[in-house]
C-alpha cells in the first residue's frame, strides 16, 4: 500500500497546475457551501433565540381557546393559584403573568396597529430581557417614570415620530368587548433583532391595562415560564403541565410562531440540499478530471497492468489520488472557514449583503452572526470521504477496462 500511496502523491505532483485548480475549486465549493450553511444557521438561531427571549419564553400557558380568536375574553382565571401550582414543578426558573390585547396606537404624527402587553416589571424582567434591549438614552423598563408609562420598539417609535416622554393614545378592546382609550407617555424604547416584534409590541403596566380593559387582578391572558439553564428540552415539562392542567393550552415557541418553525425547517432543508448539490458537483468534477487523467495515462496504466500491477493496487492508486486531493482541499477549506467564521461570528455579516433573508417575512435582523455546528462539519467531512470512494469507482473502472496489450502497441 505504501507504494500506491507514494505513486498517488507523485502523480498529484506531476501536473501541479491541474492539481492546484482542482483543489482550488473544491476549496471554493466547500468554503462557500459551509459559509452559506453557517449564515443560514446564524439567521435561524437569531430568529428562534429572539422569539424565545422576547416573545414566547420556554413555555407559555393560555386559556384553551385563546388562539382561536385572540379575543380578550379568553383569559386565565385565578392566575395566582395557577402560578403557585406551576411553580411546584422542577426545572422552572421564573414565571410571569401577562395581559395581551390587540390595539391601536396614535401619536400626533401617525398611528399603528399594535399588540398591547401588560406586564408586571418585577417578575417580567426575570423571564424576558426587554430591559436589556433598552440602550442608554432610550429610557427604562418601568423603573423610573412620572406618568402612565409605555415601552415600545425603536421601529415603532420612528414610525410614530415619538421619543422618550412623548405622549400617545392607546386604544383597545375590554374584556367585555367594549373599547377603551387612554393616554400614555413613552418611558422606554427597546431594540431587538426581531424587527417585526419591535414594530408591533408595546409594553404597559399590568395594573394599568387590567383597569382599562376590565380585568380583575388575578385574570391574565398568559403565563410565561423560563426554565433553568441546564434543562435541554422543555418537552417533559410541557407534558407534565398538560397532565396537571388538562383544560389549558400549554405551548412552546413553534406553537406560537409556527411560521418561524416552518422557516427553520425550510432553511435547514435548503441548506442540506445546498450542501448535497455542492458535494455532488464536486464529485462530478473529480470524476471528470480523473477520467481525463486516466485517458492521458492510458498507456501507463496498460504498462503497469502488463508488468503485473493487480486491480486492487490500481484501484488504491486512483483512490489515494482522489483522497489526497479531497483531504488537502478539506484541510485548506477548514482553515479558511475557521478563520472567516471566527471573524464573522464576532462581527456579523451586514444584512444588506444577504438581503434576501429578510424577504422571508418571518422576522428581520440587521446583522447575521454565522454559526457552524460540529455535526454539520462532521457530516460534510464524512460525505467527502464517502464521495472520494464513490468518485474513484468510475475512473478505476475505466482503468481496469484498459487491456495490458495497450502498452505493447505503438
Amino acid at each position, binding site marked *: 500500500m505504501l*507504494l500506491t500511496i507514494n505513486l498517488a502523491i507523485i502523480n498529484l505532483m506531476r501536473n501541479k497546475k491541474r492539481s492546484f485548480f482542482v483543489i482550488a475549486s473544491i476549496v471554493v465549493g466547500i468554503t462557500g457551501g459551509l459559509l452559506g450553511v453557517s449564515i443560514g444557521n446564524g439567521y435561524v438561531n437569531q430568529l428562534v433565540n429572539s422569539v424565545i427571549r422576547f416573545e414566547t419564553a420556554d413555555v407559555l400557558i393560555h386559556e384553551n381557546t385563546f388562539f382561536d380568536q385572540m379575543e380578550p375574553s379568553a383569559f386565565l382565571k385565578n392566575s395566582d393559584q395557577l402560578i403557585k401550582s406551576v411553580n411546584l414543578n422542577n426545572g422552572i426558573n421564573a414565571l410571569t403573568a401577562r395581559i395581551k390585547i390587540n390595539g391601536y396606537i396614535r401619536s400626533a404624527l401617525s398611528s399603528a396597529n399594535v399588540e398591547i402587553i401588560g406586564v408586571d416589571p418585577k417578575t417580567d424582567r426575570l423571564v424576558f430581557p426587554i430591559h436589556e434591549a433598552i440602550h442608554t438614552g432610550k429610557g427604562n423598563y418601568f423603573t423610573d417614570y412620572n406618568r402612565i408609562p409605555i415601552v415600545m420598539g425603536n421601529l415603532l417609535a420612528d414610525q410614530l415620530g415619538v421619543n422618550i416622554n412623548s405622549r400617545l393614545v392607546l386604544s383597545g378592546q375590554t374584556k367585555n368587548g367594549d373599547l377603551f382609550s387612554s393616554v400614555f407617555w413613552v418611558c422606554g424604547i427597546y431594540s431587538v433583532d426581531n424587527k417585526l416584534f419591535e414594530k408591533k409590541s408595546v409594553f404597559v403596566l399590568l395594573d394599568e391595562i387590567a383597569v382599562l380593559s376590565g380585568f380583575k387582578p388575578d385574570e391574565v391572558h398568559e403565563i410565561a415560564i423560563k426554565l433553568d439553564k441546564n434543562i435541554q428540552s422543555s418537552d417533559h415539562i410541557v407534558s407534565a403541565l398538560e397532565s396537571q392542567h388538562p383544560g389549558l393550552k400549554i405551548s412552546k415557541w413553534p406553537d406560537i410562531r409556527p411560521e418561524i418553525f416552518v422557516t427553520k425547517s425550510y432553511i435547514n432543508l435548503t441548506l442540506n440540499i445546498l450542501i448535497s448539490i455542492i458535494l455532488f458537483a464536486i464529485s462530478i468534477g473529480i470524476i471528470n478530471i480523473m477520467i481525463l487523467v486516466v485517458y492521458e495515462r492510458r498507456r*501507463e496504466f496498460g504498462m503497469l497492468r*502488463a*508488468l*503485473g500491477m*493487480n486491480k486492487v493496487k490500481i484501484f488504491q492508486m486512483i483512490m489515494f489520488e482522489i483522497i489526497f486531493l479531497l483531504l488537502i482541499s478539506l484541510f485548506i477549506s477548514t482553515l479558511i472557514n475557521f478563520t472567516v467564521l471566527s471573524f464573522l461570528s464576532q462581527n456579523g455579516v451586514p444584512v444588506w449583503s444577504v438581503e434576501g433573508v429578510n424577504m422571508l417575512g418571518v422576522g428581520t435582523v440587521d446583522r447575521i452572526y454565522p454559526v457552524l455546528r460540529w455535526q454539520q462539519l462532521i457530516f460534510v467531512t464524512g460525505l467527502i470521504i464517502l464521495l472520494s470512494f464513490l468518485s474513484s469507482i468510475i475512473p478505476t473502472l475505466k482503468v481496469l477496462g484498459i487491456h495490458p496489450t495497450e*502498452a*505493447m502497441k505503438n
Partner: protein
Amino acid sequence: MNIIEIKNLEKHYSEADLIVKAVDNISFSVKKGEFLVIVGPSGSGKTTLINLIGGLDFPTAGEIFVDGYAIHQMKQDQLTDFRLHNIGFVFQNYNLLPVLTAKENIELIMKLQGISKKECNKRTLDLLKIIGLSERAESKPSKLSGGQQQRIAVARSIASGPKFILADEPTANLDSHSAETLLDTMQLLNQNEGTTFIFSTHDPRIMKRAKRMIRLEDGKIIDDITND
C-alpha cells in the same frame, strides 16, 4: 530444460464476417538461456505470439506452458500475478513511468513483489552498474536518451528475477549506436546470468546475434533455425 512449451497454439480475430488467423496452429518450445528471435513481415503474428506467451492475451485454442504452468488456463487476475513473478517485458516505447527516477523505475516491480527496501536498493544499484547507468540513477526518463531509457527498461525487466524476458521490437526507436549498446547489455546478461530472451523484431542486428530464429508468415512458423 524447456522453460516454455507451446502446443497447437491458435489466435483468431473476427473482423466483420472475416476470421483472421493471427496465430495459426503453432508449436515450439524454448529452453532456458536461449536468445530467441521471432521475425517476420508486418501482420505475420509476431506481436500476437509475444502477447500470448506473455499472458497478455488469451489463445483461441492450444496450450502454453511456462515453467510447467498452464497459463492458457489461467484467469486474468492469476495471469497478472504470474506476469509479475515470472515474466519480464521490454517494450518498443520503453514505457518507463515519467514521474519516477531511473532507480525508482527499476525498483517498481520489486516493490510490487514485496521485496524489502534494502534488497531493492542493492539489486537496483547492481543492475545500474551492469547497464552502465549508475551515474544516471536519479535522472527522470525525460532527461535520458532513448537508448538509456531502454537500458533502464531492460534493467527493470530483469530486476524481478523473471523466468524469461519478452522484448517487442526493443531497438525499433533507437539509433544504431544505442541499439548496439542495448544489445551488448542484453547479450551480456544472457551469457553471464543465463537470462532467457525472446525478441520480436525486424532488426538484422538482433537477428545476427540470435542463437535461434523463428520465422513467421501468416501466423505460421515457416522456419525455425538454430545458429550455433
